[in-house]
């Protein structure tokens, strides 16, 4: 499998996905 960080679009999309994951985590699990 290709490393998404090898392309700029892969890097940006990975960053957006990570943002959503962390947002859901923060909203549901952090006080």
């Amino acid at each position, binding site marked *: 499998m290709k*490393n998404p*960080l*090898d392309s*700029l679009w892969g*890097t*940006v999309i*990975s*960053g*957006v996905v*990570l*943002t959503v994951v*962390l*947002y859901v*985590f*923060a*909203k549901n699990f*952090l*006080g």
Partner: protein
Amino acid sequence: MENIDIVSALSRWIHFMAGIMWIGLLYYFNFVQVAALKNAGADGTAAGITKHVAPRALLFFRWAAVLTWISGAALLGPYFMDAFLLRNGMGPIGIGAWLGTIMLFNVWVLIWPNQKKILGMVSASDDEKSKARRVAFLASRTNTMLSIPMLFFMATGMSHSALFSL
């Protein structure tokens, strides 16, 4: 204006300026320089970038990273521990602080030591340079990826509590 307000205002101001310098140069490296070096290597003009541009950009890049972290820590002030322990309503900004801290680690432990080998500031064999190039590239790309959620939590973590139902 109370003293604490002045410290907070100055910290925020410096945090913004240093942060723009740091992340601006990070985006320059990733969105501009990597592709430019590829083309410059093909027509034999890469030395202009590696000799005159990259060392200067890296100088401001790595020290802006330090100043961003220190001013961010000063801005958190008495809430520093709550932020890093993700507690007492400081969780969202704490996530931003953790991401920024990981990025600072990447700058000083992975990017800068390997860039010194790549740019010939320390001696390294061709094999070591080749490995250094890959590590520095991936660490830089990782920081670009992490900057996206980091900036989201920095922008929303303190002031938009409703977004997090806090």
